[in-house]
């Protein structure tokens, strides 16, 4: 209990650091993932190839490597001045977007064929068919996997602590090296903090699922 009371400010900062990191990179991942899924089913071959390449490449890249690419690559490109937090958001968001893309795409696959056929037969374009008919239905199917992916994102955000971002992982690192505290107790508190976030996320997604459920 001492560890938490003594270092409450640090824990609070770490906790909100993780929450912020997760929220912003989730947003980026959702936007990019949906865009890439749209690319992968689009009628333009070049975009399909791009989407496929994006997914294949990012799914086979270790996240640590992606962090290195972002932190070392962007300054070399002349894009300096990003602080480590935003670099972490970029790395986490791009990485997770590949998985979100696949979740949405398999959601698209479960929408009954008749829906898109009906949309086309009343003269809707690809954009209209996808945006107004197929994606809203696909999103409902894709919701549970997306929820699990965002929980995975929360856990992956711990890697940012290796790259100078203040979050729960870095709290653990700092306290581990500061002598005097029982390492297991620190671990328990960190674990509880993560559980709060992941339980909140899965609760949110269960709520969304119930809200959006439609009888087919």
């Amino acid at each position, binding site marked *: 209990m001492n560890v938490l009371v003594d270092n409450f400010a640090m824990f609070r900062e770490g906790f909100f650091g993780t929450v912020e990191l997760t929220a912003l990179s989730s947003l980026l991942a959702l936007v990019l993932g949906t865009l890439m899924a749209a690319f992968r089913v689009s009628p333009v071959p070049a975009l399909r190839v791009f989407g496929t390449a994006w997914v294949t490449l990012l799914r086979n890249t270790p996240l640590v490597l992606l962090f290195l690419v972002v932190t070392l690559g962007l300054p070399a490109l002349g894009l300096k001045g990003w602080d480590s937090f935003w670099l972490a958001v970029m790395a986490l968001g791009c990485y997770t977007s590949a998985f979100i893309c696949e979740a949405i795409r398999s959601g698209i696959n479960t929408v009954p064929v008749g829906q898109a056929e009906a949309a086309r037969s009343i003269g809707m374009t690809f954009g209209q068919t996808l945006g107004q008919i197929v994606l809203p239905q696909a999103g409902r199917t894709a919701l549970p996997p997306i929820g699990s*992916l965002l929980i*995975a994102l929360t856990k992956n955000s711990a890697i940012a602590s290796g790259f100078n971002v203040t979050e729960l992982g870095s709290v653990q690192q700092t306290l581990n090296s500061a002598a005097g505290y029982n390492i297991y107790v620190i671990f328990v508190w960190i674990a509880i903090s993560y559980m709060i976030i992941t339980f909140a996320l899965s609760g949110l997604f269960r709520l969304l699922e119930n809200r959006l459920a439609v009888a087919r």
Partner: protein
Amino acid sequence: MSSSVLYDVPGPKARTRNRVYGLLSTVAILALVAFVIYKFNDTGQFQAGLWEAYEYTDTQQRIVDGLLTTLKTFAIAAALSLALGAVLAVGRLSDHKPVRWAATVLVEFFRAMPLLIMIFLLFAAVFTTEPMWALVIGLTLYNGSVQAEIFRSGINAVPKGQGEAAYAIGLRKTQVMTSVLVPQAVRSMLPSIISQLVVTLKDTSLGFIILYEELLFVGKSFAQQTPPVNGVYAFIPMVIVFGSIYILLCLALSSLATWVERRSRRSRKGTPPALEGTAATVMADPGHSAAPGPGETGTGPDGPKAP
């Protein structure tokens, strides 16, 4: 639904328009790549001095050493996690309530913990001088729990009649498992197992953060030791070289998963057990794994992937 359902067969006008879009996006992507190359060249990342170190056999030897360390860590962690996964899966499928309960708690806990946090703990508390074992045990605990869920869902996905028939002819539970259920389940779970192994391979790079001398760490220390040429450090060449090695390794392993999956789908001799159960769990599963491997989403029951 295959993607072509989403749009009409393009007529002459649409084909021209698609070609224009295609051209524009190709140009945009090429421009981006050109910009990256130009900028790298401009900031002197392609100077010969930064790259010539990679021609020395000494350097190559170090890269190979790092690669072998990574592969060794991966091999140990993979073997241990498969073993742990089998034990935990057996526990979760046990007839005894306390065993089932304990296994469930273990699986749920280790799947819910960030892997890096666990590795930090192991490194700080147990294996203070041996980062390799901190990494291996961390990977084992985490991936073992995920593998346990894959095993369990694979066994549950075998049609119920199989187990019932085996019990009816008087086999004991162990016999039912080993001679009827497991052989059938392995076929449907193999792609997911290999995908999870890709995750294990990717996660060995977490050793970088606890300063374990695996491939990525070798790369970084190597880049730090190379003297800067005209004020430019050798980090970008390092990322390019070592990144390619990692991506090729993971691609090789995940294409194995895709190949196995395609093969099992094709097999005529006794259809593989229905994938519905596995697919549903596997679809939901990546959430708990740090990073679901490729192929997982492909195992869905919805037939062929869109092109």
